[in-house]
Structure formats: C-alpha cells, structure tokens
C-alpha cells in the first residue's frame, strides 16, 4: 500500500490532535505543542498544517463550542480519522522495527 507522506511537523501536530482527543483546535494545539515539545511556532503554521492534514484525510473537523472569551465565535475542533490513526500506528511500528535493528553498542558508544 502506498503510504501518504507525513512530514515531521505534521506528525507532531497529528499526535497533538490525538492527545487532545476531540478537544483539539488551533489554540489548544499550539499550546500543547509549546508545552510538550517546547516549540514556539506561529499560529499560521499550525492553521495551515491542520488544513493540510484534513485534506490528506488524517483528521476531520467540525465547528462548535463558542465561548465568551472568543467573542462567541465557534472553534474548529479536530479529531483523528481512522486513516490518521493507522498512519500514526504505522509510523510507530516502523520506528519500533528500526529500533530493533540497531546493534546495541552503537548508541551506547556514541551516547557516552
């Protein structure tokens, strides 16, 4: 099966959406990124990445949950799709397999 290419930043954002489990939208994803990875990125980067992920079919979105602090405007809440979760799992699995292949000494030597 041809795998849709998932960039590094896209993968991280997709993970954030997964972590937030239905509560992910522009603000929470940016904050989670900052919190968990320490990366501060512009809002536009996050916004664009989310749109691209949706186009690739890894997330779906719906509008909802306007609050007072956003002036009653609705949020676009993202959720990982089946395709998205499979992609994440495949990446995870691939990594695992690759880790298995590393000879035990290599990392120790370079690490110390």
């Amino acid at each position, binding site marked *: 099966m041809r795998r849709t290419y998932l960039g590094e930043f896209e993968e991280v954002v997709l993970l954030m959406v997964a972590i937030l489990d239905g509560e992910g*939208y*522009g*603000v929470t994803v*940016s*904050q989670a990124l900052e919190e968990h990875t320490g990366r501060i990125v*512009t*809002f*536009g*980067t996050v*916004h*664009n990445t989310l*749109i*691209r992920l*949706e*186009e690739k079919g890894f997330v779906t979105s719906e*509008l909802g949950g*306007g*609050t007072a*602090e*956003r*002036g009653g*405007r*609705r*949020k*676009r809440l993202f959720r990982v799709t089946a395709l998205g979760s499979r992609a994440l799992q495949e990446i995870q699995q691939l990594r695992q397999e690759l880790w298995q292949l590393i000879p035990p000494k290599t990392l120790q030597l370079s690490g110390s």
Partner: protein
Amino acid sequence: MKPPRFAHWLLTRLHPEETLEEVEGDLDELYTYWYERAGRTQATLRYLLNVVSVLPPFVRRRKRQEDYYQTPSILQPTMIRNYLKIALRNLKRQKVSTSINVVGLAIGLATCILIMLYVQDELSYDRYNDKADRIVRVGLKLQMNGKDVGGYSLGQNAARDLKQEFPEVLKVTRIKGQGGEFVSYGTTSFRQDNLLLADSTFFEVFTIPFLKGNPKRALTEPNTVVLTEETARKYFGNQDPIGKVLSFGNDKRPYRITGVVRNVPTNSHFKFDMLATLVGQDQTIDWPGWLYSIDYQTYLLLPEHYDYRQLAAKIPQLAEKQMGSEIQQFLKLTPKQFREKGDDFGVFLQPLTDIHLYSRAESSQSGNIMYVYVLTAIAAFMLLIACVNFMNLATATAVRRSREVGVRKVLGSVKGQLQQQFLIESVLLAMVALIVGLLVVSLALPFFNQLTGKTLSMNLLIKPLMATGLVAGTVLVGLLAGSYPAFYLSSFKPVFVLKGRVTAGRGSFNLRSGLVVFQFFITISLIIATVTADRQLRYMQAQKVGFDREQVLVIHDTHMLRNNETVFRDKIIRSPQVVTGSISGQVPVGRTNMDNTTVRTKEDPDQGVMTRFYFVDPEYIPTLGMRMVQGRNFSKSFPTDASAVILNETAVRALGWQKNPIGRELIGHTDDNGVNIMYRVVGVVSDFHFESLRQKIGPLAMFLGRNSGNILVKTRTDKLPEFLASLKQQWESFAPTAPFSYSFLDDRFEQVYVSEQKIEQILTLFSSLTIFIACLGLFGLATYTAEQRTKEIGVRKVLGASVGSVVALLSKDFLKLVLIALVLASPIAWWGMNQWLKEFAYKVTIDWWIFALAGLLAIGIALLTVSFQSIKAALVNPVKSLRSE
C-alpha cells in the same frame, strides 16, 4: 483586554472568508493567554506576528465543501456513456423540438457546405498552375472620348518589347482568341468554338500536362496545333493523332498535330479545345505595336519571390514611349494633347489568380468577388440563424427539463457535470444535423451545379483537412449553440425548481427576443434584396431595346456558304413564312463583332467621336424592326448610298448635330493617300441597345456594305419546326462544310442576362431557406410560449376571453419583434441594393413599397407560424389546463 484594532481589522479584511470565524476566535483566545502570561506588549507583538502568519500569501486556503471529497474524474467513460444515453432518451422524447432543431441546423449546415464548395471553387481559379503566383497578365488602360475602351489584351508586339526591356520578365506568352472555326479531318467536321492561338512558350508558363508529344517543341513550327484529350478522341477515336493534319476553315489551311494535352481544368480563366501556334501568324504589315489590333492577352512569368508591383512601377515608362508614338501616328496628337482632352492611356498588371474574380465581366463565366463576399455572408448568416434557433429552442425547453436538473442536483450532480451533459447533448444533435446536412448536400448538388453552371463535387469534402474542419466546425457549432442553455440550466437552484417556481425569467426573454429580431432582420433584408434583384432583371428584360426581338431567327455561320450566302438569303425570303431577311455580321445581342472607329464632322475635323460601326444591307433595319427617327433607310434605288451613313440618336448628339442632321457630311476614315472619305447622313435611327443594358447606349454609325456572318430572318409562322426543317434542307443543298445552326434573337437576349438571372435565383433560393429556418425557430418559440401560458389562457377563458382575443394576445409579442426587425433591416438593405444597382446604367429605383411588401410578407409568415400554435392553445378546454393545480 482587546487585541490591537488595526491588526484585527487587517485580519477581517484579508483572511480567507471560509476560516475567518475560527481563526478570529483562536487568535482572540491566544491573545488573552499571552496577555496573562507575558503582559500587554508581548501579547500585542505576538498577536501582530500571528495575524501576519494567517494572511495571504502565508495562509492556506481551506477548500470549499464540494471540492473536498474528491469527485470521480469528470471524464469517466461511464459518465460519458450515461450522458449519451440520457441525451438520446431526451431527444427521442421531445420529437418536435428535436426535429425542428435537426432540420434547421441541417439546412444551415448544408447551405454552408454548398456555399463553401462554391466559394472554394471560385477562389481556386487558375491555381492549378505550378507557377500561378508568378504569372501576371498585362492589361490596357485606354480612355478615348471619355469612354473606357481598355481591356485585358494588348497589341502583338507588347510581349516582345516587355521581354526585351526587362530582365525580370523571364518568359512571355500570348493568347489570341480565334472565334469559331470549322476544323475538319477527312469527312469529320466540327465547329471549334474554343480555339485559341498561343506562343510556343505557352506550356512553359502555364501548367497543362502533355499526354503525347513534346511540350518544348509542340508549337515551335508554323501551322502546328495541340489538342486536348477530349478533342483528340472526338476526331480520332483511339487512333494516335500525332502527326495527323487537320484542315482549318473554308480555305482548308493544314495544321499538323504535335501534341495531346489533358483537358483544361474547369477552374481556368481560359478554355481551349485546340491550341494552335501563333508562330508565323504575326502581321508584318500595318502597324504592329501595342495599340493596333488589340487581340493578344499577354502574360509574363516573373522570378520567384518577386513582387509584381516592382515591375508595375517600371512599365509605364516603356508604355508611354511605345503607345505615345502610336497615338501620335494614328490620331495626330501628342500624348500630352491626348490627355488634355481628358483621355488617358497606359497599362496595368494583374496577377493570374486575380483574373477570374477581379476582371470586369467578359462573359457569364467570369466571377465576381462581390458575389463571393455576398455568398459567404449569407452562409455565415444561415449558420448563425440556425445556431440562434438552436439556442432559442433549447433555452425555451429548459423549463421542461428544470425538474430533471433539480433532481440531478439533489442526487449530487455538480454544475460541471450538468453543463457537460447539456453540451454533449447539443454536440450530438449537431452531429446528427451534419449527417442530415451532408445527405441534403448530396441530393441538392446536381441542382446547385445546374444553377451555378459549375461542376462541383462532394469529393472535395473527403480530403482529410476538409473533413476534419467540417467535423470540428460542427462540434464547435454544437458547443456554441449548447453553451447558453448549458450554463443557464445548470444554474437552476434545486429548491426552487422542485417547488415548481421556475419560469423563464425576464432576462432570458429579452435575449430570446433579441435573437428573433436578429433572425427577422436577416430574413427581411434578404426579401428586400430578392425583390429588388427580381425587379431589376424584369426591368432589363422588359426594357425597350429599340428593336423587335420577337420572331427573329438568326442563322449562324452563313459565311461558310461563301458566294452562295446571298443566293441562300434570296431563296429563303421568297418563302411566304418569311417577312424579310438580312445578311449581317452584327447581331445586336450576344457575342458578335464589335468594331470601333473614329468619325469626325466635316466642319470640325479635329473633333473625333469614337463610335461603333456596322456594315448593313438595306434589309437590316426593317428585319430588326428598328425605327427611323428622321430621314430614310438605305435603299437599292439610290446608287449614292454607298457613301451614305445612318446614325443613331446618341451619335447625332455626340457630333453636335441636334438640329437637322440629314444631309450633313462626316469623315469616315482617311485612306492611304491621306484623302478623307466623306459620308452623307441619310437617316437617323432611334437608339437601340446593342450592348448589355448594364452599359449606356453609345454612338453608332451604319454604313452600307457587304458584311457576311449571319442571316437574320423575320418570320411569321406558327409551324416553326417545319419551317426550320425546310431551311435546313435548303442549307444542305449548298453542301457547306458547316452544319446548319441557328438561334432566336429573344433567346440570345436572355442569354446576356444569365449571370443576373443566376444571382436572382440563388438569392431567391437562399432567402426562402432563411425564411424557412426563421419560421422553424419562431414555431418552436411559439410552442413554448403557448405552453408557458397554458394556465393563464385557461383563467382568461374562464373569465370570458374569446378565442380571437387570446390569439391576438399570443401573437402580439412576436409581431412587435418583427416590426423592430423591419425598421432595422430597411436602411441596411436599401444601402446594399443601391451598391449593387450602381453596376447598371439602366436600373430600377428602390421604392418604399418594397419595404412595405417585405414587412408584410415577414409579418404574414410570422403570423401564420405563430397562429398555428396560438389557435391551438386558445382552443384548449380550460378544464384541461386548470385541473392539475
């Protein structure tokens, strides 16, 4: 705690609309977050930076919902198959509008194809020559006594002089027409009307392939002749003609056959069955020059990539020198004096490919670029009208299909698919129309050939280029005609459609009315043109030509009887069926000898008047029923009549002898010793047309003299066949080499106007076709309107409207459109016909009643078409139309 106003404003203005709400909210929330964590300045700065990051060009645009889920490719074969199936079903279901559409478009296309074939043929003239673009003909500009007597031939030496003077003239060749000549081989004798004489260089300039013989040597010796395939077969059957000797004319001049060539293509401006050599024919006596015996069509072959205008700029010098000295010799005038009289002379060059379409009419064969333009315009209009009809009908039937569109949209069709479907439908219809059109063309071609006197064939259409062009053109027509309905229909909103709220809007009604006006504009213009052309033709034929052309028989080639010509004449006039008979070379209509001379009055010998002259016998005037205005006819009882002259009224005026011309004297010509030969005027004959009615009557002088060629016979008989048979018998008793042949003067007269007649017939044909197509369109539209207003009509009838008032209501709108079209068409048609009539010296006026007639005709036709539907609609029982509410 508000984010900076300006940044927010920028965001609302520039951020894509689709995601504005969420982004605004997100950024507001983030601003609060930053504010709380890092204070106002930080928050403002970060807000600004982030706003910029979501402005174009950085921001990614969220696609619209429809585009989001990838639709299967629009050109899937399954879909196309489905479109075709639906299209066929639709076409089958709406038989009336389908057939109207197909018939309309097919006729439009057929007309277009026919005209295309015709125009293509006209434009292809003389292009069969390999060197077509390098050949030019030298024409003569000559104006004498204010009359243009120039033409397309020159004297015998012009070719030689041009070749000597200009190195860029690679080859010259001359062609000389030779009237009819009797050519015999043994006992086989035919009159050869297409006999030309040409220089030996002929085949180096023109491309006429040889079947037998050597093109390089074919015409180099005196008394040699080349035959065409067909002529060779006529004389020799399957024998080899090379080396055989034909005898020409009464004196049996021998001509040896040196070659056989392919028949001259029909699209050639010269035609010959036999081509005899000019070698040894050139005159060495008299005045061989440029202006003397102007019988030679002179052609020059120029180098490749050479603009003939360069040569045209250089020739006048030579022409001035040569022709100037000749004018000096003949007229005793220097070129300057000649020009001071308002006359002019010179030469001009005409590219070979222009000869057919741009020459003044020499025969009914020659083309006219104006007719090519007019026909092309008609073709374009016909096609346009057919397309307009198509659009009109398709748009009108749109309402019927609006539900279909609605349902399709609800089931997920997108606009593009619907447009595609409608376009495919119209292209399909156009292709069907093309096939029908081609059938029509193949059926109509023989008649069209008869009408135009051409031999066009469908073969031209089989050429790959033409075939592709035709199909591509038809597809284009289908696309164009289908585009408006496609876009209009696919833009229906399903909600309204399914609620049944769609009626054709005001706007589309305006478009459709515009199209109707356009159609009738063209129809009315064509009616006006046809009526005017018809009137002009009738006028010309009914014109008092000044002589009696009824019951006059012309017996041809009587000079072949030689000395027995008079005997024969005297013999036939003794018959009780003959009133009188005259021997003459000059018949006032049709191809005949036309000679000009300059006569001068005795009182003022410097003032020459260029006139036509006839040699006639005393019977000429009574035979043709010409009227003597003053004086008397020639008579045998006056021996002095040998030096008498009869003038026509125009000549009398031109000589300035309005008062009492009888008995005055004029100088006919000057003999070799410089003695003026005087003629005394004995009579004045009333003006008669001796040329086409296109020209004004010119001066004419008649002298008494023997002039053989034809015998004109005025008959009074009901038993024409017997009379002709007896004539034939008498003719054969003289055992001439020529067969007995004759024509009637009134037939000959009509022959002269063949080209006008053709144009009139073609105009009639096309205008009736246009009217027909326009009617089809109107019929379709009326059907639609009636259908649209079924309920309205039902309600009106319930409320007491009469059938008449309903019909009037339905017809009124269309009449208005026809009237608008009439107002628009009248001035344009008037202008166009005025241009056409300018060609004629004697012409009809364009009266107001023609416009009224055309208008009435158009209104009548429109009413007839519309009323069929409106009466049907008005007669429907209102119960039927109202029950379904």
